[in-house]
Structures are given as structure tokens and as C-alpha cells.
């Protein structure tokens, strides 16, 4: 099976280019990419194909980019399937241009044994049209006391280890887990946060939290958490990724750690890139995320860090919550937002605001996450898996949360004007989503 995408606007994050061109897909992989002077006939001839061997897709000048690799997606199986199942998450991902979801282990119970991981793999294969790569907990029950069977879990397919929003507060336990993980070559993903300072916080300290009377945490708690983790990396040499860097004050520490040659990367969430603390106004619990939304200065600093590449990845931090856990006073409401389907339109806000160009966005959403996990995807180059997203970067629409495919519809973008929409998503060259 071969498909020829012609008349496309190619977003190549590796080359950093945004050019017209064509892509030929053969046997689930990208066979050839031609930019600027794409001649379909020559492309086919070079592969020994004739026009009747291929399905031709006229992209009509729309954007074709490597599919999004989303690290840190919560699918609520096992435990809370009513919030999100592998089936619903898979449909949402496909509709959002996400071709690989890297799932979080913070389910009930946690994914902390090879047996639990096998359950996830089985469920994912049965129900999901996109690639699913599971992460496993770093410590048993995410309790921060004993490390999990990192070796066995890797054999079972765990691509990274994290306790999600639980910080391993016992530094000795974390040091040992990092040391052991290094011997296995495992990637550890941590949530940099000083756990005692941030306990119970529902907002970032500042004028807004003071006015609204919300329990707040200083943005400095993130830097303190990151500083500790960086010191541990110097001790252990482990392979480390910070799940969400959301404050300006944490960035110099990250920069120093990188220039000192530590094996460290960092991500951020789409919500921290596109919203700020003032959006919570009126105690809107759909805007409650963890860590809490930050000031506008922090937001802009983090966007700039994505532009320069200091922050490597952008994630949806997709966290489904049912209405019951959100329709509560702000302090009591659950944190988290669904974002698989809104990740790309929200990210395009940064493009339309001229803060980031499309290759930089896809470097952070596709190329870098794939590289960090050692995947071949995330690239628009011959030989890479044909995981692709075709999208219109400009079409305006108003988001209605009840049209989302997730079982939970807790999005902060409900009723907001968005620009840019996925037209089609391909996994291994096969269409998994087409907008009707």
C-alpha cells in the first residue's frame, strides 16, 4: 500500500523548514520527501512505482507534519474507566493529530508491576487506533518508598518511569531509584516541586491568589524541586526528564544543568503555555491544573524557552475528570484538564501570536518527545514511520466541549475561539481519523 501526499505544506521539525512539497508513504513508512520542487511522477519513478499503484491525497496546501508524540496522557484504565477508556482516549488522540500516546501510571491501582503493565498493553492494543506506549511507576504504589521492578517493567514495554504528580520526597529513595534506573538505561520522568511547600496549593501565590483567598504556592517551589533533582543527577548520572517546567525562575537552573552535560530534558504543558492564573477568575475549576497556572510573565518566559529549545517538549498532560470531581468549590475540585483534541489548536495560538513557528512547535510536540523516548517517529524524513497529521492551521472555530471524543469534557477552552483544526491523522500510513 502506498500513498502520495501532494500539494502539501510540509512542516519538518528536524530541518526547521516550512515549505511546499510532497511525501510518499510506502508500507507504513515514509519512502520519500520532496520539498519546493516536488514532481510526483519523478518521486514515483524513483521508487519504481506508477501512479496507479498509489492512493493520491491532495492536501490542498494544508500542513502535513509528523504526528504528535504526547508524553504523559492519563487514560483512566484500570480503575476509572467512566472518565476515560483506551477506546475514547484513542479516538480523541486520533482526532487531535496525536499518533503516539505515552500513558501515565497514576491509575487505580498504579501501573507498578509487569502484570499491571501487561493489562495496559492488552487493553491498548485491542481498542486504540494510535500507538500507545506505557510508562510505569518509579516506586511501588507511587508511594515513594520502594522502587518498582524497573528491569522487568522495561522488558514488558515500559518506556519511562514516573510517579506523576507525586514527588519522591524521600531523597535517599529517589537517589537509589535514579542510580538503579541508570544501570537499566531507563528514563526517569519527575515532577519538580518542593512537596511540603506545594501541599494543598490550588493557585500560584501572587495578587490573584491573595484576592481570591486561595491556598497558594510560590513559583519558587518548582525551582527548589528542580535544584534537588539536578543535584541528584550529578550524583547518579541518570537519564531524566522534568515533566512540566512552568516558571521563569526554574529556567536558569535547567540551562546550567544542560550546559554541564547532564542527561536532562524538560517538558511543559499546553495549558501553561496558553493560559495564566487570571483565567481562573470566578473560581472556574476547569482551569485548575497541577502545578497551578502561573503569571503572564512566567507563561511568556516558558514560551520563549520552548522557542530556544531549552524546554524540549510540549505535552497535553491530558487528565480526564468527571463532572462530579470538578463541580466543587475550587479548593476541593480535582486538578487536571483533557487536552488530546485541543493540544494542536491551542498550540497554534502561539503560532498565530507569532511567538513560535510551526517547525518549532512540532520539534517540541513530535520530534523531541520521540527522540527522548528513542522512537523513530516524530520526523518527516525517508525511513521514519508514516505517522502524520494533516491540518488546516488557519480555520477558525468555537470549541464546544460536548463535541470532544473523550469521555470527560473538562477542557478550559470550552466556548473559546480557536484557530486551526486537524483534517486527517495517519498512523503507519493508514488513516485513523478524517474530519467529515
Amino acid at each position, binding site marked *: 500500500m502506498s500513498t502520495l501526499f501532494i500539494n502539501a505544506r510540509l512542516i519538518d521539525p528536524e530541518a526547521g523548514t516550512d515549505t511546499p512539497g510532497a511525501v510518499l508513504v510506502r508500507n507504513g513508512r515514509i519512502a520519500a520527501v520532496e520539498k519546493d520542487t516536488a514532481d510526483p511522477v519523478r518521486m514515483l519513478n524513483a521508487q519504481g512505482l506508477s501512479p496507479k499503484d498509489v492512493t493520491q491525497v491532495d492536501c490542498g496546501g494544508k500542513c502535513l507534519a509528523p504526528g504528535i508524540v504526547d508524553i504523559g496522557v492519563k487514560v483512566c484504565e484500570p480503575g476509572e474507566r467512566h472518565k476515560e477508556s483506551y477506546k475514547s482516549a484513542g479516538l480523541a488522540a486520533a482526532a487531535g493529530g496525536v499518533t503516539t500516546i505515552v500513558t501515565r501510571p497514576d491509575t487505580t491501582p498504579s501501573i507498578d508491576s509487569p502484570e499491571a503493565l501487561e493489562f495496559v498493553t492488552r487493553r491498548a492494543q485491542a481498542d486504540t487506533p494510535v500507538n500507545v506506549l506505557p510508562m510505569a511507576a518509579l516506586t511501588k504504589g507511587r508511594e515513594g518508598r520502594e522502587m518498582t521492578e524497573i528491569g522487568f517493567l522495561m522488558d514488558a514495554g515500559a518506556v519511562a518511569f514516573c510517579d506523576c504528580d507525586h514527588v519522591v520526597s524521600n531523597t535517599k529513595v529517589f537517589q537509589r531509584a535514579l542510580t538503579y534506573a541508570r544501570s537499566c538505561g531507563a528514563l526517569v520522568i519527575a515532577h519538580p516541586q518542593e512537596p511540603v511547600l506545594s501541599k494543598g496549593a490550588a493557585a500560584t501565590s501572587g495578587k490573584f491568589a*491573595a*484576592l481570591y*483567598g*486561595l491556598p497558594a504556592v510560590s513559583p519558587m517551589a518548582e525551582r527548589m524541586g528542580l535544584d534537588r533533582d539536578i543535584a541528584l543527577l550529578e550524583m547518579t548520572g541518570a537519564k531524566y526528564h522534568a515533566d512540566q517546567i512552568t516558571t521563569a525562575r526554574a529556567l536558569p537552573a535547567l540551562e546550567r544543568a544542560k550546559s554541564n552535560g547532564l542527561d536532562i530534558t524538560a517538558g511543559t504543558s499546553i495549558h501553561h503555555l496558553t493560559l495564566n492564573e487570571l483565567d481562573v477568575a470566578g*473560581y472556574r475549576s476547569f482551569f485548575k491544573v497541577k502545578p497551578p497556572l502561573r503569571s503572564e510573565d512566567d507563561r511568556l518566559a516558558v514560551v520563549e524557552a520552548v522557542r530556544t529549545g531549552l524546554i524540549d517538549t510540549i505535552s497535553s498532560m491530558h487528565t480526564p475528570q468527571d463532572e*462530579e470531581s470538578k463541580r466543587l*468549590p*475550587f479548593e*476541593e475540585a480535582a486538578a487536571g484538564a483533557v487536552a488530546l483534541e485541543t493540544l494542536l489548536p491551542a498550540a497554534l495560538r502561539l503560532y498565530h501570536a507569532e511567538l513560535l513557528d510551526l517547525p518549532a512547535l512540532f520539534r517540541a510536540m513530535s520530534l523531541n518527545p520521540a527522540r527522548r523516548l528513542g522512537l523513530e517517529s516524530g520526523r518527516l524524513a525517508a525511513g521514519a514511520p508514516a505517522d502524520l497529521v494533516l491540518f488546516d492551521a488557519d480555520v477558525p472555530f468555537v470549541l464546544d466541549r460536548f463535541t470532544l471524543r473523550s469521555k470527560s469534557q473538562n477542557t478550559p477552552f470550552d466556548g473559546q475561539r480557536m484557530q486551526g483544526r486537524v483534517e486527517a491523522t495517519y498512523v503507519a500510513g493508514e488513516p485513523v481519523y478524517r474530519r467529515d
Partner: protein
Amino acid sequence: MSFEHRHLLGIEPLKPHEITAILDLADDYVALNRRPEKHSDVLAGLTQINMFFENSTRTQASFELAGKRLGADVMNMAMQASSIKKGETLIDTAMTLNAMHPDLLVVRHPHSGAVDLLAQKVNCAVLNAGDGKHEHPTQALLDALTIRRSKGRLHRLNIAICGDIAHSRVARSNLILLGKMENRIRLIGPPTLVPGQFAEFGAEIYDDMREGLKDVDVVMMLRLQKERMDGGFIPSEREYYHRYGLDADKLGRAKPDAIVMHPGPMNRGVEIDGTLADDINRSVIQEQVEMGVAVRMAAMDLLARNLRAERQAKAG
């Protein structure tokens, strides 16, 4: 009368002329309350429910009395003892109450924003009787009325708010109200209880009480909220009293005619000297309680007028 609000959820949404409107009407109710026959029927036929999810004696009694004096049918619900304990959510409780057709709902809740949330779900007028660390609008209004009556004006005064600002909804509402009326506000207390962010509201912050009290017209003391503290904010009550307790010596720094206020209940010997609190020449603490009933009558009267006008418009 221009007071165009459905609810009284906080001071923040009010405009200065609306604050003045409530206070003017409250003045009339002070006069009514001082008559031997203190009854009006402006709320006759209306049902007022007091829902307190947090313990309260003074505020609840004040709202109850205010409603009764205006002729409303008043019911008190002690929510901490009821269905909340059985796992019912705030919204379900609100829907249940809503089905009983109340007209005025007076709500106190331990979480900031909870009263706003509840107001979105009911058809009646909601009065915030204190939500978490957010707002306590009727307290700020009664404080404003007390100041206006004893100082003759509510603008261009130097007002010190002292003590546990961080945990106080009273402080927030007062800060907003007194700021809207163009007064100079000083916040005095240990930095653990007076976070620096409050400077952004245009208040001056002092950690030295003697310095902060210099030449002020009004000294508002706050209760040290031991029940809201989840860690050590002060080393001990005796050190707190020594540095931040209001006594005759510290008050000597204020203007000679400065008044002393306290929202109650007081911790005598912790934030205020007992003798000073009882000094009728300086302390207006008893007046505050009296103004509380009048301000709540005024607020409920205004909200009920809007509610009736809205219903009439709907019926017509």
C-alpha cells in the same frame, strides 16, 4: 436607588455609589432598631434560609434578627451537622434547598469561592456570610458604617488593619471596600501573617506596629485565627501580644481620637488588651455589632427589591 445586583457575594463587584446606597439605607434601619417597636414588613412573605457550613454565633444571629425584624420567615440550617456529613455535594444541597423556593439564602462556607458556586445554581438572592479566606461583605459594610458614623466620613482616612491578614476574609473585604472609598490603608502584622502580595492592592505594609499606627484614624484589629493555621505562623501568643497586641501604649501612637474596632470574637490578651476593648471612649466594638444588624437589613431589603422587580418583569 441604584443597586443592581442579584446577589451580595463580595465587595469586589460593588461600585462606590452602591456601597453608599447600602450604608444610607442602613442608617435608616439603625433608627428603626433603636425604636421600642422595631418591626417592618418589607420582607413579609419572603423566606430567608441561613445555611452555615461553618460555625457561627454572631453572624448567624445577626442575619436571623435582621430577617425577623423585616418580617421574613427565617430558617436556620446548621450544615456542618447535616447532609454534608452524609456525602452530599454542595451543589446537590443547593438544588435541594432551591426546590423549597427560598427568596434569600445566607451562606457561610469554609472554602473560598463556594458561595459563588452555589449562587450559580439557585434562583434566589444569595448573601455571602463568609467564604473561606475570600470575602465577608456584610462585615466590611458594617465596619464602614461604624467608621462613617463615628468619623463623619468614609474617605481620606488613615486606617490600620492589624494582625492575621493572611487568613482573614474580613481583611480582604475591608481592604477592597476602604480602597474603593479612597482611604489610605496600612496592614500591620508579622510577615508570616501579612503576605507581601497585599502591597499590590495599594496598601502600605508594616511589620512594626508602633510605626504603623502612627497618626491613624481607625485601628481595626483582627482575630488570630488559630483554627485556620496549619503550621507555625507565630512563635507564641505571648510574643505575639507583646509585638502586635493592641494596648494603650501602642494606641498612643495613633491620633488621639482614633477608634478601635474588632470583628469579634476577641482573644483578649492575644491581639487586644481587655481593658482597651471595653473602653467606651475608644472602642466601637459594641457599635459594630449594632451596625451589623442594620447593614444586613439594608442588604436584604435591596436584594429583595431587585428580586421582586425581576419576578414582576417576568410575570408581566
